[in-house]
């Protein structure tokens, strides 16, 4: 995943969107519109059990009575939900092996730099020996194309497959946990997703297993006028560990496309889930035409004692981002973390942050948010830290910084703190600054050109978050971090 994701701030700020091509492939697309029949048809396509069909229909009925949230600091014309197509997939049956996958699709992933050929990596022929192994689930529009390293993972008892497949192969787990973290009616977009969700990834890590490799899902929107509604469910059983990364891109189109995903994480006793996102959906052009509406509900629950969930996100894409990866700290001594870099440029708008709900005793949460606004963009951090009456000795620390580049952009901070517990400690700090003339001059005096200097300064500003990205993705992050340099100084 090296070519598709901007890896230096200057690229982030002035990049050409290199993932903006369209794959020419025959696609089966539902006609636009949303109705019970459409929901039934999606369910039928996936040969889902009846309970799941009913679950979807219930969500649809509830969604129809709900209203879009208006509290976020974003503006966009109202969405006509009947003008969107709710299912798109490459024609034909799901390929049983990589050899059956349409070569056009393989080329797409190759162009995006996503490794779908596991054997090459295993043999160490084409890749550098140091390159870590990463299992990939590739989701193209509404379906999963292939999942790599399934067999290797199976040896460890780890289930990593598409959500549709999990419904067939692990119905009990799906039934038990689906909607247990993000209820159907949690919010407008989550309800919509619950009715029409297409594909996504499913992970189950059994008791005591440390997942032997990074898992990742690569989401690609290709079809026109379709929405993408993936659903991801990750369950880490007692004492297990998993690190998961998602990446996302879409073609450059003049129309806005809706992406309303739901991600649910469950960590049982002593389990740890590390979830990283590099979000690079098409952001629209410099005049704000086109781009993805990224309205996503991500939540994890630290159900078990001493469990640990951390979200790391690098948000650079999308016309509008509405996203609050959150943690419910239910288990005693559990830990929740949120590390975020959100960069907006041109006419992009982001309203993103997190919710940390402390329920258990001695629970701890850390929030580090770095917002960078450039161009005419608007970038808001919105957070909630809640200490419930039972959260004895709970702790939160929040650091929330904004960097402004240029005088036409905006940066906002809306942190809610709610404490109902005497011995709970909440600390919140926020700053807003810009790249100062003095910093720039000092760099230039040392011979560093202004663009490079800004990029370096922005990079430094984000360092606390970048260092949370999994080392396995150092290849991607190398330019971001100059990890090799820093690591070697140790």
């Amino acid at each position, binding site marked *: 995943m090296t070519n598709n994701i901007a890896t230096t701030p200057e690229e982030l700020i002035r990049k050409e969107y290199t993932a903006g091509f369209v794959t020419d492939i025959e696609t089966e697309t539902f006609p636009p519109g949303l109705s019970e029949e459409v929901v039934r048809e999606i369910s039928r396509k996936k040969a889902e059990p009846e309970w799941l069909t009913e679950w979807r229909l219930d969500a649809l009925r509830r969604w129809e009575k709900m209203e879009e949230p208006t*509290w976020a600091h974003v503006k966009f014309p109202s969405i006509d939900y009947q003008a969107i197509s709710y299912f798109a997939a490459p024609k034909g049956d799901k390929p049983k092996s990589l050899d059956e996958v349409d070569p056009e699709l393989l080329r797409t992933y190759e162009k995006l730099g996503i490794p779908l050929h596991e054997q090459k990596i295993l043999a160490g022929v084409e890749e550098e020996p140091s390159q870590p192994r990463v299992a990939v689930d590739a989701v193209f529009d509404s379906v999963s194309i292939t999942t790599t390293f399934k067999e290797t993972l199976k040896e460890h008892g780890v289930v990593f497959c598409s959500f549709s497949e999990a419904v067939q192969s692990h119905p009990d787990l799906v039934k038990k946990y689906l909607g247990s973290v993000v209820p159907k009616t949690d919010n407008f977009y989550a309800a919509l997703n619950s009715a029409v969700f297409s594909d996504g990834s499913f992970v189950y890590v059994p008791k005591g297993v440390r997942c032997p490799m990074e898992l990742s899902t690569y989401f690609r929107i290709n079809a026109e006028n379709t929405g993408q509604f993936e659903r991801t469910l990750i369950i880490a059983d007692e004492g297990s560990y998993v690190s998961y990364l998602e990446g996302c891109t879409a073609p450059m189109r003049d129309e806005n496309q809706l992406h309303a995903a739901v991600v649910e994480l469950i960590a049982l006793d002593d389990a740890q889930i590390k979830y990283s996102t590099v979000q690079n959906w098409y952001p629209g052009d410099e005049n704000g035409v086109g781009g993805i509406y990224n309205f996503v509900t991500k939540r994890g629950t630290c159900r078990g004692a001493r469990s640990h969930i951390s979200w790391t996100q690098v948000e650079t894409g999308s016309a509008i981002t509405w996203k609050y990866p959150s943690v419910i700290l239910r288990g005693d001594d559990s830990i929740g973390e949120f590390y975020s870099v959100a960069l907006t440029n041109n006419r992009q708008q982001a309203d993103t942050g997190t919710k940390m709900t402390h329920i258990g005793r001695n629970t701890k949460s850390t929030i580090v948010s770095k917002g960078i606004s450039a161009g005419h963009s608007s970038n808001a951090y919105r957070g909630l830290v809640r*200490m419930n*009456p039972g959260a004895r000795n709970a702790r939160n620390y929040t650091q929330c910084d*904004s960097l*402004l*580049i*240029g*005088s*036409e*952009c*905006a*940066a*906002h*901070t*809306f*942190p*809610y*703190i*709610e*404490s*109902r*517990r*005497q*011995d*709970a*400690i*909440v*600390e*919140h*700090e*926020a*700053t*807003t*600054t*810009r790249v100062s003339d003095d910093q720039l001059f000092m760099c230039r005096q040392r011979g560093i050109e202004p663009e490079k200097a800004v990029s370096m300064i922005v990079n430094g500003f984000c360092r606390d978050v970048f260092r949370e990205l999994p080392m396995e993705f150092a290849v991607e992050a190398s330019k971001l971090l100059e990890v090799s340099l820093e690591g070697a100084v140790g």
Partner: protein
Amino acid sequence: MVGAGHQSLAAAVCPMTFQPVKIAPWIDAKQIEQTIENTRLPQPRKDPWKYTSVKQVLERLDNPFERTDQLPEQNGSGVFVGDFGDPKISSLAHKYVNQISNSSNNVLASLNLLRAQQGYAIVSSENNDSVGPAVQIPASDSCERILILVQERANLEFIEHTSGGNRVIECLILPGGQLVHRRIQPATTHVEYNSLSVNVMENSSYKMTQYSVGAQLRRNDIVINIEGEGARVDVSGGWKLADTSHLDTQLAVNHRAKGATSQQKFHGVVGDSARAIFNGRIYIARNAPKTDAHLQNKNIATSDGAAIFTKPELEIYADDVACSHGATSGQLDEQQIFYLRTRGIPDDRSRELILEGFLAEIVEHEEGARVLGIESKGVPGP
């Protein structure tokens, strides 16, 4: 015609059980109703009424207020106090009343004008270099409307006592003027609503401190608009809440001119089953570069029933600014207590001392210390 919004509001509030007096001939009830109609009504359980019942506040407006005729005493020269009906005040009042608060779209401030039992203005004379004794605004559980005008290069200081009433104050500080405002909020069993709007012009300054203890429900809406270059705003305060008291302070500092500075600093102690709500907002408009704005809110809870809701907000549209905010919520530092105990101070007294010190950080005024109950305890002032 009165709009539907006002109708529903009226249904809850307007069937007044008392006859409002018209406090000045120039008050145009029709026009005010029109203003209310055109303004977005407060939404229950949504910002800025997320933690405080707007219904209770509206109901309070419906209950009889005692009519008072008490005007602040006028001490010394350089300042004039007059009823809205006073011919010396009338034209000024007509010009400014509901203009300053309207810029913040406050329906409750408009309602206050419809119900006010008393209205008066405090006006400094121009260029009065010497500051006379502070004007005392007496406590009242009435519905009152007050205009404060600081003329160019003039000085004014006033001490405001609130007590379960409904008071709306509008302040205008003309270029080079300086206004010092102390607000004392002692215990009351009433529902109290205060709205304060301040427009700060070029090179003028506004300094306010607010000291609050328990009330059944006390809501302070404060909007400070910086409209002139180089203005300085310094707002601070403290609260000590016990029993089931409820205090909600909503403070916005809007930077609409360049090169101004603002500081907000609030410390609170919350015990028993009390609730403290603080929302501190810094807004910086695009035309307000070179702004320096900071906000700090610290809270200590002394019981598990206490609830603290704080939200420091930044909304920034200019890049050449230095802004920060911080908020904390926690309990007494056990290390500090231990330190004092090793010096022979008993546990209870140690806790008291530390809390007193925490509040003393924001106390700048004797009366403030008294209302917070930290005077004469051997805690040195700042």
